[in-house]
């Protein structure tokens, strides 16, 4: 990857909670229009990594660069305006708002001036995830699957360069999962964003992503194509345990 092509650069990032090291010495470079899967066993530090990138946590050590600019310690709302949008593992929509109003928040406040016409951007995002028919339904009355799609639409409406998806398939049934895979592919193809995608459903990641990063106990243990990852000894050990003797 060319250095000038790098969107996000994590340099030796460490996050400690008291004596507990949750992320240690993480180096990751993400280029333009990539679709990267981020996997790892429970407690590997995947969500913490998202929270560090989006500034909900400040890293104890290391630097985070976005388009060459040091964004370590920047406020969360500024991170979004710079072009990093995210969704949450426990889906977070504005429950008293309609679907359209939810997306308007992303278009109006999240875009940092990139979106000229918020209403049409919101409408586009709604269509992209296939929720146009539910435009005026209050989020409190929507299914989990629709709320997850809505969160993606809200993030897309802010016109990000990088989209972080935190387990968008958790709690969805097989039909909904297929729909989600289609949406993620469409977002990448039509919006030209890079996507970093945390997922427990490893098979989905392996099928869709061209690059996979594996975390275990806060360390990056592998980074490569799905084919390389499934053959990686450290990854097999992390998921299945060390072979006896």
């Amino acid at each position: 990857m060319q250095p000038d092509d790098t969107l996000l650069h994590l340099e030796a990032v460490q996050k400690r909670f008291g004596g507990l090291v949750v992320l240690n010495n993480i180096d990751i470079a993400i280029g333009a229009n990539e679709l990267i899967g981020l996997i790892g066993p429970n407690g590997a530090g995947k969500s913490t990594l998202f929270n560090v990138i989006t500034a909900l946590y400040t890293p104890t050590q290391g630097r985070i660069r976005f388009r060459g600019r040091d964004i370590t310690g920047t406020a969360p709302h500024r991170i979004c305006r710079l072009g990093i949008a995210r969704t949450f593992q426990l889906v977070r929509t504005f429950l008293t708002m309609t679907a359209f109003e939810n997306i308007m928040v992303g278009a109006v406040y999240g875009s940092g001036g990139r979106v000229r016409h918020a209403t049409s951007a919101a409408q586009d995002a709604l269509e992209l995830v296939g929720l146009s028919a539910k435009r005026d339904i209050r989020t409190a009355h929507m299914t989990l699957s629709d709320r997850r799609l809505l969160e993606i639409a809200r993030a897309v409406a802010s016109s990000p360069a990088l989209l972080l998806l935190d387990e968008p398939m958790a709690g969805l049934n097989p039909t909904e999962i297929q729909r989600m895979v289609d949406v993620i592919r469409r977002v990448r193809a039509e919006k030209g964003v890079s996507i970093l995608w945390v997922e427990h459903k490893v098979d989905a990641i392996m099928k869709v992503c061209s690059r996979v990063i594996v975390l275990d106990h806060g360390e990056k243990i592998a980074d490569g194509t799905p084919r390389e990852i499934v053959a990686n000894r450290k990854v097999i050990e992390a998921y299945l345990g060390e072979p006896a003797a």
Partner: protein
Amino acid sequence: MLKQALPQRAWTAIAIVAVIALALVPLLPGAVDSYAFSFLFFVFLYAIMAQGWNLVAGFGGQISLGNHAFFGLGAYTTAILWTGNYLWGSLYDSHPDIYYFDPVTMTLGGLVAAVAAIIIGLPLLSKLRGDYFALGTLGFGEIVKVMFINGGDFTGGAFGVVAPAGTFDTLLPHYLVGLGLMAGVGVAIRLLMRSRYGLALIAVRDDEMAASANGIDVLKVKVSAFAGSAFIAGVAGSLYTYYIFHVGPDSVFDLDWMLLPLMMTVVGGTGTLLGPILGALVMYAVFDLAKIVVPDYHPVISGLTIILAMLFLPKGLMRSFAGRARAA
């Protein structure tokens, strides 16, 4: 905000007709000197306070228990500017009524409260959430009251400040200004909630973390709503000074100036536009009636009404009648 259902248009029409009708009341013979006239003035005053509280707590989700302090700050600002003649200099000699319902003095009453809200809101709202913010604002109210008691000649100490009561003629200006402010605040909040700011305010109320992850400066939104709420309370305090003239720490910093508007808003419908007004009308009628009919037990009747309202109309009068639970 963006979608309008028919019932809301009906409510808007009712509100406009009601304001026009109320504005015509003084033309009725004997109306200005009637008890009902002063009753309505107090309904307007409490409705303004309730609207102010509803802005930060109902729409913004930040429960302020310090709005009585902002009311008192507005009242004191008005009385001090007036008695000390800090504003109009020699004009005061030629126009002895210049401070009476002076828009500049009233605006300054609101501004002093708003500035106090920004000063106290920045540290409180950046560090405290939910119940802790509520307790912080309650503490702020007590601190302000003590400061005014110990303010020496400037604040008149425990006795307070007495404005020139000789300017009082009839209750007509109080009534009209109160009605105008109530309507004006209602229109302003409606416009605000339909603007981009309203979108951010609801987003912050619904989910702070999602709001900030989607580009909203949460602290800025919260502090500005708190300041807006304080401004409204400060102007209401200013209006009260023109009625009571004697501004003392026990009267204008009384917790009732926070608690009653809070109850009225909750009964009327938190986070609705007309709820605080409806709640002020209904609850003030209950309070007043109880005071007249059963003076020894009136707090019991008032308390019972609130308990019953919470049991049977937990979403407030507005949402129960309008059918559709929708903010703004």
